C-alpha cells in the first residue's frame, strides 16, 4: 500500500510539474530608471530572429508577465520598442527563471528609412531598393541584362557587368545565395527572366555566409533575384532558331531551379549569329581565364598574357556580331547544395568554344621620295579557342564559432589561331598555338574566439602555365632585327610557368565602435620563362636567331607584409577605415642563358584611408586614398625580343624599378528614386597609375617596335565622371545624362630617349527611356566621345592622334496587339579622326515576337536589314597613307521557336 502511495505521489508530482505553467516576468526601464510602458516583450522560437511563441506588453510600471505552457522549449527573450535598441537573450533554464529588471537603451542616430507602396514599381527599405519585375517587363527581353537595363539606377556594360548609382555590383544572388561570384555575366547574358518576380539592389551588403565577416561592416553592392513561389520552382526556357537561307542558327536554353536544398542555373548556347561564347561569359578577351575576383588573396595572383596574339580588331568598337562569322558553344552550370546545416557545396562548370573569322585588308603606302613602297595586306584571321573551367567550394561550419572554406579553381585554355593573307605578292601564313592552364587552391579557416575576437588563416597555392608558339612563313627582310632572306620561316616559342604559394593570418578584435585587425602574410612567386626564336627553311634545320631573341631565366618574388587596420564608426553618419601596411618585396632574377644573377629588395610603406559620411538616408559621400606597390613584371625584367605579329616586335627593358603608386577618389552619391526621382553620382579620381599603359611605338623599317614600358613616378592621371538619372512621372519616362573627362600624362624612357604620351578624353551621353504604356516605348541614346593623344620624344612632337565619335542607338518597342511585339533597333556610328576620312556605319535590326500561348512564342530576328557588307576608311599622314577595309556580317533573318515552362 505504501509503495502504491509513493508511486502515485511521484506520478502526480511529475504530471503536476509537466502541467505546471512557467511564468516569465520582469520590469523594463530606461537608462534613467523610468519604467517603460508599451514595450513588446516576446518569447521567440529558437533564436532572436524566430517566430513569436508568447508575448506581453509592459504596463505603466514597466511590468510584464508571460505564461508559458511548455517548459521543454528553447526560447529567446526579445524586447522591442521604437526608438530603443532591441534586447535579446536566450532563456537557458526556463524551470528556474526568476524575474529580472531589464534596461532598454535608447537608439541614438537615424533609423533606417522605409518607403513602401503597394503595387509600386519601386520600393525602398533602408539600404535595399526593390523593383517589381511586372512593372518593367515588356515581353521583349531576351535575357536578364535586357531587363536590368530598364531598371532606374542600374547600368549594364557590354560584358554583362552591372553597376548601381556609380557603385560596381560585386555579385548577383539567387534568393540570398551566391552561385556565381564575380562571374555573374553568365547569368545576365544567358539567363532568361522567366520566373523572376522581384529584383532587389542591396547596398552595404555583408556576406554572412563567411564567419570572418561577423564583425565587419557591409560594403558591397549586390543584386538579389527573387523568384515566384510555385510548387515546383523550376524555370526553363528553350529557343531554337534557324535562318531562312544561309548557315545562321541559334539554339539556347536557360534553366533555373530552386528545389529543396538545391539551387542551380544551367545555360547553353550554340550559335552562328556572331555571339561569341567568351563574350556571353563576360570575358574581355579571348585569352582571359575565368576567376572569381571577389576573393581576397594574400598576394596578387598574376595570370599572364602571351605577347604573341592576334588582337580582335573592331573599328569604332562595334559589337562582335557585326564583324565576326562564328560557330560558338557555351555551356554553364552553377550549382549550390546545402547538404545539411554544417556543409554547403558550390560547383561551377563552364565550357566555351569559339571558332570565328575576321576578314580585313590594309593598303599601306609609304611616301619615301626615293622609293615609295606600297604594302598590301589581305588578312583572314581564324580563331579556334576552347576554354574549360571548373570552380568548386566547400563551406564547412561545424559550429557557430568555427568555419573552413576550401575553394579550388581550374582553367584550361587552348587557342589555335591563324592569320592568312598576302603581303606584296607573297602568301603569308601566321600561326599561333597557345595553351594556358591554371589551378588554384584556397583554404580559409576562421575561429570565433568570442563575439569580439576573430582569428583567421588563409593558404593559397596557384599553379599557372603559359606556352605559346608563333610561326610565320616568309618573314620580312630587316637587317636591324637580323631577319635574313636565306630563311623562309620563323618560329618563336614562349613559355611562362609559374607557381605562387602564399599564406596569411589575421586577428580581429572589436571594442565598442572600433574594430582592430592585424594581418601578416607571406608569399612566394616563382616564374620560369623561356623565349626563343628560330629561322628555318624546313623544320629539321632550325637555326636559333642570334641576339636578344633567346632568354631562359627564373624570376622569384618574395613578399612579406604586416598590416594594421582600424575601422571606427563615429556615429551612424560617419565611419572611417584606415590601414597601414609594410610590405617587403624581394626580387631575384636569374638569367640562365647569360649566367647573370640579380637581386633587389624594397620596403614599401602603404597607407590606406577610407571615409564614409552619410549626410542623410539619400546622400552619401565617400573618400578613399591608397598607395600600392608597383613591382616590375616579367616582360619588363627580361630584355629578350619577341615577334608578336608580321609587323611588330615587343621587347623587355630589363629595369629593376620598384615604385609606389597612389590613387585617390572621392564620390558623392544621391539616391531617391521614389520622391524626387533623382539618382545621381559624381566621382573624382586622381592617380599616378594610369588604367592602361600606352606602349611607345616607333617605326623602324617595316617593323614597328613596342617596348614594355616601366612605371614612372611622374605619371599623372585624373578623371571626373558624373551621372544623373531623373524620373519624369508626368510623361512616365526617365532621362539620363552622363559625362566623363579624363586627362593623363605618361612618361617613359626608350633607349635613353624620354617619351611622353599625353591623352585627353571626354565622353558625354544623353539617354531617354520611357515606360509610357505596354503598347509603345522608346529607349534612345546619343553618345559623344572625343579622344586626343600626343606623343613627344625628347619634347619634340612625334605623333598626334585625334578622334571624335558620335554614336546613337534607338530602340522603339511596339505591342501591336496582346500577342504581337515588335522592336526596331537602330545603331548609328559616325567617327571623325585626324587624318582619316569621316566614317559612317548604320545598322538596323528588327525583332518580332508572336505570343502563341503563355508558354510558346515564335520569334523573327532580321539583322542588318540595310545589308551593310563592308566598312572602309583611310588614315592619311605626311609619311604614309593607310586604307582599311573590313568585311561585316551581312543581312540575315532568323526564325525561332521559344518554349518556356
Amino acid at each position, binding site marked *: 500500500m505504501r509503495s502504491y502511495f509513493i508511486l502515485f505521489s511521484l506520478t502526480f508530482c511529475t504530471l503536476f510539474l509537466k502541467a505546471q505553467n512557467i511564468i516569465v516576468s520582469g520590469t523594463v526601464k530606461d537608462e534613467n530608471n523610468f519604467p517603460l*510602458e*508599451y514595450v*513588446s*516583450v*516576446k518569447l521567440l*522560437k529558437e533564436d532572436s530572429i524566430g*517566430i*513569436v*511563441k*508568447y*508575448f*506581453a*506588453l509592459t*504596463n*505603466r510600471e514597466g511590468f510584464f508577465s508571460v505564461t508559458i505552457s511548455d517548459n521543454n522549449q528553447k526560447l529567446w527573450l526579445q524586447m*522591442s*520598442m*521604437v*526608438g530603443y535598441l532591441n534586447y535579446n537573450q536566450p532563456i537557458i533554464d526556463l524551470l528556474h527563471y526568476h524575474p529580472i529588471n531589464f534596461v532598454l537603451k535608447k537608439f541614438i542616430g*537615424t*533609423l533606417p*528609412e*522605409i*518607403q*513602401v*507602396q*503597394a503595387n509600386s514599381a519601386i*520600393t525602398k*527599405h533602408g539600404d535595399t531598393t*526593390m523593383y517589381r519585375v511586372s512593372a518593367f517587363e515588356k515581353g521583349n527581353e531576351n535575357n536578364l541584362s535586357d531587363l536590368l537595363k530598364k531598371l532606374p539606377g542600374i547600368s549594364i556594360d557590354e560584358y554583362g557587368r552591372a553597376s548601381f548609382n556609380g557603385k560596381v555590383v560585386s555579385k548577383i544572388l539567387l534568393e540570398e545565395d551566391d552561385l556565381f561570384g564575380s562571374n555573374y555575366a553568365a547569368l545576365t547574358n544567358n539567363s532568361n527572366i522567366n520566373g523572376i518576380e522581384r529584383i532587389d539592389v542591396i547596398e552595404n551588403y555583408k556576406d554572412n555566409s563567411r564567419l570572418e565577416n561577423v564583425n565587419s561592416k557591409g560594403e558591397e553592392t549586390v543584386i538579389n533575384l527573387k523568384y515566384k513561389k510555385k510548387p515546383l520552382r523550376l524555370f526553363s526556357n528553350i529557343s531554337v532558331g534557324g535562318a531562312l537561307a544561309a548557315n545562321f542558327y541559334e539554339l539556347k536554353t536557360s534553366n533555373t531551379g530552386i528545389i529543396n536544398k538545391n539551387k542551380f542555373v544551367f545555360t547553353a548556347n550554340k550559335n552562328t549569329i556572331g555571339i561569341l561564347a567568351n563574350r556571353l561569359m563576360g570575358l574581355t578577351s579571348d585569352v582571359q581565364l575565368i576567376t572569381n575576383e571577389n576573393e581576397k588573396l594574400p598576394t596578387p595572383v598574376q595570370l599572364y598574357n602571351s605577347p604573341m596574339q592576334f588582337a580582335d580588331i573592331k573599328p569604332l568598337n562595334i559589337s562582335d556580331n557585326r564583324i565576326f562569322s562564328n560557330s560558338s558553344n557555351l555551356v554553364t552550370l552553377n550549382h549550390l547544395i546545402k547538404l545539411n546545416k554544417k556543409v554547403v557545396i558550390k560547383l561551377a562548370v563552364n565550357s566555351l568554344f569559339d571558332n570565328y573569322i575576321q576578314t580585313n585588308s590594309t593598303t599601306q603606302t609609304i611616301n619615301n621620295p626615293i622609293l615609295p613602297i606600297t604594302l598590301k595586306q589581305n588578312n583572314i584571321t581564324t580563331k579556334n579557342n576552347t576554354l574549360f573551367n571548373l570552380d568548386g567550394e566547400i563551406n564547412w561550419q561545424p559550429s557557430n564559432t568555427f568555419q573552413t572554406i576550401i575553394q579550388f579553381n581550374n582553367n584550361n585554355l587552348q587557342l589555335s589561331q591563324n592569320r592568312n593573307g598576302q603581303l606584296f605578292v607573297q602568301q603569308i601564313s601566321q600561326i599561333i598555338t597557345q595553351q594556358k592552364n591554371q589551378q588554384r587552391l584556397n583554404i580559409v579557416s576562421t575561429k570565433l574566439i568570442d563575439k569580439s575576437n576573430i582569428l583567421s588563416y588563409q593558404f593559397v597555392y596557384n599553379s599557372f602555365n603559359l606556352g605559346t608558339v608563333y610561326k610565320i612563313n616568309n618573314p620580312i627582310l630587316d637587317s636591324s632585327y637580323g631577319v635574313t632572306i636565306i630563311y623562309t620561316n620563323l618560329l618563336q616559342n614562349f613559355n611562362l610557368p609559374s607557381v605562387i604559394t602564399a599564406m596569411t593570418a589575421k586577428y580581429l578584435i572589436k571594442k565598442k565602435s572600433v574594430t582592430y585587425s592585424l594581418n601578416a602574410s607571406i608569399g612566394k612567386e616563382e616564374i620560369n620563362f623561356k623565349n626563343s626564336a628560330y629561322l628555318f627553311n624546313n623544320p629539321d634545320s632550325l637555326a636559333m636567331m642570334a641576339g636578344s631573341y633567346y632568354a631562359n631565366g627564373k624570376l622569384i618574388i618574395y613578399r612579406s607584409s604586416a598590416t594594421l587596420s582600424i575601422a571606427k564608426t563615429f556615429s551612424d553618419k560617419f565611419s572611417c577605415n584606415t590601414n597601414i601596411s609594410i610590405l617587403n618585396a624581394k626580387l631575384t632574377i636569374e638569367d640562365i642563358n647569360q649566367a647573370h644573377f640579380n637581386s633587389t629588395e624594397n620596403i614599401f610603406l602603404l597607407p590606406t584611408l577610407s571615409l564614409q559620411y552619410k549626410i542623410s538616408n539619400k546622400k552619401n559621400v565617400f573618400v578613399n586614398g591608397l598607395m600600392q606597390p608597383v613591382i616590375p613584371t616579367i616582360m619588363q625584367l627580361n630584355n629578350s625580343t619577341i615577334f608578336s605579329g608580321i609587323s611588330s616586335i615587343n621587347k623587355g627593358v630589363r629595369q629593376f624599378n620598384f615604385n609606389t603608386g597612389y590613387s585617390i577618389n572621392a564620390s558623392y552619391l544621391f539616391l531617391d528614386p521614389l520622391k524626387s526621382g533623382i539618382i545621381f553620382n559624381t566621382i573624382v579620381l586622381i592617380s599616378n597609375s594610369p588604367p592602361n599603359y600606352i606602349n611607345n611605338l616607333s617605326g623602324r623599317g617595316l617593323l614597328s617596335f613596342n617596348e614594355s614600358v616601366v612605371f614612372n613616378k611622374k605619371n599623372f592621371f585624373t578623371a571626373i565622371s558624373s551621372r544623373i538619372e531623373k524620373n519624369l512621372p508626368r510623361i512616365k519616362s526617365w532621362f539620363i545624362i552622363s559625362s566623363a573627362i579624363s586627362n593623363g600624362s605618361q612618361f617613359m624612357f626608350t633607349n635613353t630617349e624620354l617619351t611622353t604620351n599625353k591623352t585627353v578624353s571626354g565622353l558625354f551621353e544623353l539617354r531617354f527611356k520611357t515606360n509610357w504604356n505596354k503598347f509603345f516605348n522608346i529607349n534612345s541614346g546619343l553618345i559623344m566621345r572625343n579622344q586626343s593623344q600626343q606623343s613627344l620624344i625628347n619634347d619634340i612632337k612625334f605623333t598626334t592622334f585625334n578622334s571624335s565619335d558620335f554614336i546613337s542607338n534607338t530602340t522603339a518597342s511596339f505591342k501591336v496587339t496582346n500577342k504581337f511585339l515588335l522592336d526596331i533597333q537602330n545603331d548609328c556610328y559616325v567617327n571623325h579622326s585626324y587624318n582619316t576620312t569621316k566614317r559612317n556605319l548604320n545598322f538596323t535590326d528588327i525583332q518580332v515576337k508572336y505570343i502563341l500561348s503563355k508558354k510558346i512564342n515564335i520569334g523573327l530576328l532580321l539583322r542588318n536589314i540595310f545589308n551593310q557588307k563592308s566598312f572602309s576608311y583611310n588614315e592619311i599622314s605626311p609619311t604614309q597613307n593607310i586604307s582599311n577595309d573590313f568585311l561585316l556580317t551581312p543581312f540575315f533573318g532568323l526564325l525561332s521557336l521559344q518554349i518556356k515552362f
Partner: protein
Amino acid sequence: MLSFITVISQQNNICFVKYSDNGNNWNYLHWYDNSKLTFTYETNYQVFDFPVNIDGKYIKTTDTVKFKKEYLEYKEGLYKELGKIKQPITQREYISNVVKRTQYANENKEKYFVLDTIADMNKWEITEDTLSILGFNCQKAVINYKDIKYIAYFTQKLAYPAGPRNFRGLPGLILKVDSENGSIGYIATEIKFPYTGMIPVLETDGIPISQKQYSIIAEENNKKKLMKMNNFLKNPSIKQN
C-alpha cells in the same frame, strides 16, 4: 485634402501607414508614435457609372473613353462634395481602451469631442504561419472579438502594439486584418518611416459627448447627406455650394 489643424512631425520615430478597406472605398491614414496612434480617413470612392446628356436625356454610362470629359467633370464634382466633409480625427493610447475623437457633423457646422470606451482586445492566439506584406515578414494571429473571428498579420520590424483603427494588442504593427466572413478587412498599402510631414491634431474644444449620443446625431446627419447625394446624381449640372 486634410482640412484641419496639423503639426509638422519633429520626431524621427513616427510611422505613417495607409490602410485600405476590402471595399476599397476608404483609405485609413494612421500615424503611430511611441505612446499613441492618431488616425483619420480619406475617400477613395470609385466612380463606376456616371450620367451623360444624350439628346437632352440623362443616361448612365460606364464608357470613360468615349465620354472622358463628362467622366472627369463628374468625378471632380463628386470628390469636391466629398472633400468638403471634415473627416474625424481619432486618437488612442496603445494600452488604453479609451478612444478620443474630434467629430464634425451637419456639414462641419458642429464639432464634437467624443469619448468612447472599447472592449479589451488581449486574447490573441499566435500561430506560426507567416505572410509577406509590402516586403515585411508578418506572423499570423487570431482572435475572437465580440463573437467575430478576426485573422491578423503583424510584423515585429515595426514594434508598435497597434494596427488599423482599433485593432491592437500584438507585439508588432498589424498590417492586415480580416474578419472570417470577409465583411471587415484592412490591408496596409503604404508605409513611410520616419514620417516627417504634417500630422493631424486632435481638437478637444468640441462639445463633449459619448459615442452613444453621437450615434443618434450621426444617423440623422447621414440621412440628410444621402438625400443631397441623390439629388446631385439626378442632376449633376446644378452647381453645388
